[in-house]
Protein backbone atom coordinates (compact mmCIF):
# COMPACT_ATOMS: atom_id res chain seq x y z
CA UNK A 1 0.00 0.00 0.00
CA UNK A 2 2.96 2.28 0.59
CA UNK A 3 3.49 4.13 -2.66
CA UNK A 4 5.69 7.00 -1.50
CA UNK A 5 8.59 7.61 -3.84
CA UNK A 6 11.83 9.47 -3.89
CA UNK A 7 13.45 11.41 -6.65
CA UNK A 8 17.20 10.96 -6.82
CA UNK A 9 18.66 13.13 -4.03
CA UNK A 10 20.13 15.65 -6.49
CA UNK A 11 16.75 16.17 -8.15
CA UNK A 12 14.96 16.51 -4.85
CA UNK A 13 17.52 19.05 -3.63
CA UNK A 14 17.01 21.10 -6.76
CA UNK A 15 13.24 20.86 -6.43
CA UNK A 16 13.58 22.02 -2.86
CA UNK A 17 15.58 25.08 -3.99
CA UNK A 18 12.76 25.91 -6.41
CA UNK A 19 10.16 25.46 -3.66
CA UNK A 20 12.03 27.76 -1.27
CA UNK A 21 12.67 30.44 -3.87
CA UNK A 22 9.17 30.33 -5.27
CA UNK A 23 7.70 30.62 -1.80
CA UNK A 24 9.72 33.82 -1.32
CA UNK A 25 8.40 35.07 -4.68
CA UNK A 26 4.79 34.26 -3.68
CA UNK A 27 5.17 36.04 -0.35
CA UNK A 28 6.85 39.14 -1.79
CA UNK A 29 4.37 39.49 -4.62
CA UNK A 30 1.46 39.21 -2.19
CA UNK A 31 3.05 41.98 -0.10
CA UNK A 32 3.57 44.10 -3.22
CA UNK A 33 -0.14 43.84 -4.10
CA UNK A 34 -0.87 46.12 -1.14
CA UNK A 35 2.46 48.02 -1.24
CA UNK A 36 3.00 48.54 -4.99
CA UNK A 37 5.45 51.43 -4.46
CA UNK A 38 7.75 49.75 -1.93
CA UNK A 39 11.11 49.99 -3.73
CA UNK A 40 12.99 47.61 -1.44
CA UNK A 41 10.32 44.93 -1.79
CA UNK A 42 10.35 45.47 -5.56
CA UNK A 43 14.12 44.99 -5.65
CA UNK A 44 13.86 41.82 -3.58
CA UNK A 45 11.10 40.50 -5.77
CA UNK A 46 13.10 41.17 -8.92
CA UNK A 47 16.16 39.32 -7.58
CA UNK A 48 14.10 36.37 -6.33
CA UNK A 49 12.14 36.14 -9.53
CA UNK A 50 15.34 36.09 -11.63
CA UNK A 51 16.78 33.36 -9.40
CA UNK A 52 13.57 31.34 -9.72
CA UNK A 53 13.62 31.49 -13.55
CA UNK A 54 17.23 30.30 -13.57
CA UNK A 55 16.50 27.43 -11.19
CA UNK A 56 13.48 26.28 -13.20
CA UNK A 57 15.49 26.47 -16.46
CA UNK A 58 18.25 24.33 -14.94
CA UNK A 59 15.76 21.87 -13.49
CA UNK A 60 13.86 21.47 -16.76
CA UNK A 61 17.07 20.91 -18.74
CA UNK A 62 17.93 18.00 -16.44
CA UNK A 63 14.60 16.51 -15.46
CA UNK A 64 11.98 17.61 -17.97
CA UNK A 65 8.99 19.94 -17.76
CA UNK A 66 8.12 21.53 -14.43
CA UNK A 67 4.85 22.81 -15.94
CA UNK A 68 3.02 21.84 -19.15
CA UNK A 69 4.71 24.91 -20.71
CA UNK A 70 8.18 23.36 -20.29
CA UNK A 71 9.97 21.58 -23.12
CA UNK A 72 10.77 17.89 -23.36
CA UNK A 73 13.34 16.22 -25.59
CA UNK A 74 12.72 12.57 -26.52
CA UNK A 75 9.47 11.71 -24.84
CA UNK A 76 6.98 13.80 -22.90
CA UNK A 77 8.63 13.72 -19.46
CA UNK A 78 5.94 15.81 -17.76
CA UNK A 79 4.05 12.59 -17.01
CA UNK A 80 6.94 11.08 -15.04
CA UNK A 81 6.44 10.12 -11.38
CA UNK A 82 6.72 10.88 -8.58
CA UNK A 83 4.12 13.61 -8.57
CA UNK A 84 4.28 16.23 -5.81
CA UNK A 85 2.00 14.40 -3.35
CA UNK A 86 4.00 11.17 -3.78
CA UNK A 87 7.45 12.55 -2.95
CA UNK A 88 8.67 11.61 0.53
CA UNK A 89 10.65 14.90 0.91
CA UNK A 90 13.21 13.09 3.05
CA UNK A 91 16.34 13.39 0.92
CA UNK A 92 16.86 16.92 -0.26
CA UNK A 93 15.56 19.03 2.58
CA UNK A 94 18.79 19.55 4.50
Amino acid at each position, binding site marked *: *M*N*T*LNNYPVAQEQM*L*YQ*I*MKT*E*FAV*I*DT*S*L*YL*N*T*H*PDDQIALMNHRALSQRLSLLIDQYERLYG*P*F*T*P*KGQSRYCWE*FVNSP*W*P*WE*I*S*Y*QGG*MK
Partner: protein
Amino acid sequence: MWVYEKKLEYPVRVSGPDPKLAKTIITQYGGPDGELAASLRYLTQRYAAPINEAKATLTDIGTEELAHMEIVGAIFWKLIQGATKEQIMEAGLDPHYVDHGCNPFYVNGSGDSWDAKYIQTKGDIIVDLYEDLAAEEKARITYERLIQLSDDPLVNDTLKFLREREVVHFQRFGETLRITQEWKERKKFF
Protein backbone atom coordinates in the same frame (compact mmCIF):
# COMPACT_ATOMS: atom_id res chain seq x y z
CA MET B 1 -6.20 30.98 -15.86
CA TRP B 2 -4.02 28.63 -13.91
CA VAL B 3 -0.94 26.54 -14.79
CA TYR B 4 0.05 23.49 -12.75
CA GLU B 5 3.54 23.31 -11.29
CA LYS B 6 4.88 19.89 -10.31
CA LYS B 7 5.63 20.82 -6.73
CA LEU B 8 3.89 21.47 -3.42
CA GLU B 9 4.09 24.96 -1.94
CA TYR B 10 5.59 23.35 1.20
CA PRO B 11 6.87 19.78 1.72
CA VAL B 12 4.50 17.21 3.22
CA ARG B 13 6.11 14.58 5.42
CA VAL B 14 4.53 12.15 7.87
CA SER B 15 6.13 9.94 10.53
CA GLY B 16 3.88 6.97 9.76
CA PRO B 17 0.30 5.90 9.14
CA ASP B 18 -2.24 7.67 11.35
CA PRO B 19 -5.77 7.43 9.91
CA LYS B 20 -7.22 8.99 13.03
CA LEU B 21 -5.24 12.17 12.44
CA ALA B 22 -6.13 12.02 8.74
CA LYS B 23 -9.81 12.01 9.67
CA THR B 24 -9.49 15.25 11.68
CA ILE B 25 -7.22 17.00 9.17
CA ILE B 26 -9.65 16.38 6.28
CA THR B 27 -11.76 19.25 7.61
CA GLN B 28 -9.15 21.67 6.25
CA TYR B 29 -9.71 20.07 2.83
CA GLY B 30 -13.50 20.21 2.61
CA GLY B 31 -14.77 21.63 5.89
CA PRO B 32 -16.38 25.03 6.63
CA ASP B 33 -13.06 26.78 7.32
CA GLY B 34 -11.02 24.65 4.93
CA GLU B 35 -8.89 25.51 1.95
CA LEU B 36 -11.45 24.66 -0.75
CA ALA B 37 -13.94 27.04 0.86
CA ALA B 38 -11.29 29.75 1.17
CA SER B 39 -10.17 29.49 -2.43
CA LEU B 40 -13.67 29.44 -3.92
CA ARG B 41 -14.80 32.33 -1.68
CA TYR B 42 -11.98 34.68 -2.68
CA LEU B 43 -11.97 33.84 -6.36
CA THR B 44 -15.67 34.58 -6.76
CA GLN B 45 -15.43 37.85 -4.81
CA ARG B 46 -13.07 39.37 -7.38
CA TYR B 47 -15.58 40.58 -9.96
CA ALA B 48 -17.08 43.40 -7.89
CA ALA B 49 -13.72 44.56 -6.53
CA PRO B 50 -13.49 48.25 -7.45
CA ILE B 51 -9.71 48.72 -7.09
CA ASN B 52 -6.75 46.88 -8.52
CA GLU B 53 -5.07 46.09 -5.20
CA ALA B 54 -8.18 44.15 -4.14
CA LYS B 55 -8.44 42.29 -7.46
CA ALA B 56 -4.79 41.23 -7.19
CA THR B 57 -4.99 40.22 -3.52
CA LEU B 58 -8.16 38.14 -3.98
CA THR B 59 -6.70 36.44 -7.06
CA ASP B 60 -3.36 35.60 -5.46
CA ILE B 61 -4.71 34.46 -2.10
CA GLY B 62 -7.48 32.46 -3.85
CA THR B 63 -4.75 30.79 -5.90
CA GLU B 64 -2.51 30.10 -2.90
CA GLU B 65 -5.45 28.47 -1.08
CA LEU B 66 -5.72 25.96 -3.94
CA ALA B 67 -2.08 25.09 -3.33
CA HIS B 68 -2.91 24.68 0.37
CA MET B 69 -5.79 22.38 -0.52
CA GLU B 70 -3.26 20.26 -2.40
CA ILE B 71 -1.00 20.20 0.68
CA VAL B 72 -3.85 19.10 2.98
CA GLY B 73 -4.86 16.43 0.46
CA ALA B 74 -1.27 15.16 0.42
CA ILE B 75 -1.18 15.00 4.24
CA PHE B 76 -4.41 12.98 4.26
CA TRP B 77 -3.23 10.59 1.58
CA LYS B 78 0.19 10.06 3.16
CA LEU B 79 -1.30 9.46 6.62
CA ILE B 80 -3.36 6.58 5.22
CA GLN B 81 -0.52 4.90 3.35
CA GLY B 82 0.41 1.69 5.16
CA ALA B 83 -2.50 1.84 7.62
CA THR B 84 -3.94 -1.50 8.70
CA LYS B 85 -7.58 -2.45 8.40
CA GLU B 86 -7.83 -2.29 12.20
CA GLN B 87 -6.41 1.25 12.30
CA ILE B 88 -8.87 2.39 9.63
CA MET B 89 -11.81 0.86 11.52
CA GLU B 90 -10.61 2.24 14.85
CA ALA B 91 -10.32 5.73 13.40
CA GLY B 92 -13.86 5.50 12.02
CA LEU B 93 -12.50 6.03 8.54
CA ASP B 94 -14.14 2.87 7.16
CA PRO B 95 -17.15 4.69 5.64
CA HIS B 96 -14.73 7.11 3.95
CA TYR B 97 -12.71 4.17 2.64
CA VAL B 98 -15.84 2.53 1.20
CA ASP B 99 -16.93 5.72 -0.57
CA HIS B 100 -13.61 7.26 -1.60
CA GLY B 101 -10.80 4.76 -1.05
CA CYS B 102 -7.65 6.52 0.16
CA ASN B 103 -8.39 9.70 -1.78
CA PRO B 104 -9.26 12.79 0.19
CA PHE B 105 -12.79 14.06 -0.34
CA TYR B 106 -14.53 17.38 0.27
CA VAL B 107 -15.94 16.61 3.69
CA ASN B 108 -15.44 17.93 7.22
CA GLY B 109 -14.15 15.88 10.14
CA SER B 110 -17.60 14.39 10.72
CA GLY B 111 -17.92 13.31 7.09
CA ASP B 112 -20.45 15.98 6.01
CA SER B 113 -20.06 17.11 2.40
CA TRP B 114 -18.66 20.49 1.48
CA ASP B 115 -21.42 23.05 1.07
CA ALA B 116 -21.46 26.36 -0.80
CA LYS B 117 -23.44 27.67 2.18
CA TYR B 118 -20.09 27.79 4.03
CA ILE B 119 -19.09 30.81 1.95
CA GLN B 120 -20.54 34.00 0.60
CA THR B 121 -19.94 36.92 -1.68
CA LYS B 122 -22.18 39.89 -1.14
CA GLY B 123 -20.95 41.74 -4.22
CA ASP B 124 -19.70 44.56 -2.00
CA ILE B 125 -15.95 44.62 -1.46
CA ILE B 126 -15.99 46.05 2.07
CA VAL B 127 -18.53 43.48 3.28
CA ASP B 128 -16.67 40.67 1.51
CA LEU B 129 -13.30 41.68 2.99
CA TYR B 130 -14.77 41.55 6.50
CA GLU B 131 -15.90 37.99 5.76
CA ASP B 132 -12.40 37.18 4.49
CA LEU B 133 -10.72 38.51 7.64
CA ALA B 134 -13.02 36.31 9.74
CA ALA B 135 -12.36 33.32 7.45
CA GLU B 136 -8.59 33.62 7.88
CA GLU B 137 -8.98 33.75 11.66
CA LYS B 138 -11.26 30.70 11.66
CA ALA B 139 -8.76 28.78 9.56
CA ARG B 140 -5.92 29.86 11.86
CA ILE B 141 -7.63 28.56 15.00
CA THR B 142 -8.55 25.33 13.20
CA TYR B 143 -4.87 24.71 12.42
CA GLU B 144 -3.96 25.51 16.03
CA ARG B 145 -6.41 22.87 17.26
CA LEU B 146 -5.11 20.33 14.76
CA ILE B 147 -1.56 21.01 15.97
CA GLN B 148 -2.79 20.54 19.56
CA LEU B 149 -4.30 17.17 18.70
CA SER B 150 -1.48 15.85 16.52
CA ASP B 151 1.51 13.99 17.95
CA ASP B 152 3.32 13.82 14.62
CA PRO B 153 6.14 16.41 14.49
CA LEU B 154 6.48 16.13 10.71
CA VAL B 155 2.77 16.74 10.13
CA ASN B 156 2.90 19.60 12.64
CA ASP B 157 5.73 21.20 10.69
CA THR B 158 3.46 21.45 7.63
CA LEU B 159 0.43 22.51 9.72
CA LYS B 160 2.51 25.32 11.25
CA PHE B 161 3.37 26.59 7.78
CA LEU B 162 -0.33 26.58 6.84
CA ARG B 163 -1.25 28.35 10.09
CA GLU B 164 1.37 31.03 9.44
CA ARG B 165 -0.04 31.68 5.97
CA GLU B 166 -3.48 32.36 7.47
CA VAL B 167 -1.85 35.05 9.62
CA VAL B 168 -0.14 36.60 6.59
CA HIS B 169 -3.38 36.49 4.55
CA PHE B 170 -5.25 38.17 7.42
CA GLN B 171 -2.66 40.93 7.35
CA ARG B 172 -2.91 41.39 3.57
CA PHE B 173 -6.74 41.44 3.64
CA GLY B 174 -6.57 44.06 6.42
CA GLU B 175 -4.33 46.24 4.25
CA THR B 176 -6.67 45.72 1.29
CA LEU B 177 -9.62 46.82 3.43
CA ARG B 178 -7.75 49.97 4.51
CA ILE B 179 -6.73 50.82 0.93
CA THR B 180 -10.30 50.29 -0.29
CA GLN B 181 -11.74 52.46 2.47
CA GLU B 182 -9.26 55.25 1.67
CA TRP B 183 -10.24 55.02 -1.99
CA LYS B 184 -13.92 55.36 -1.06
CA GLU B 185 -13.17 58.43 1.08
CA ARG B 186 -11.26 60.08 -1.76
CA LYS B 187 -14.12 59.54 -4.17
CA LYS B 188 -16.30 61.98 -2.19
CA PHE B 189 -14.19 64.95 -3.31
CA PHE B 190 -14.48 64.46 -7.07
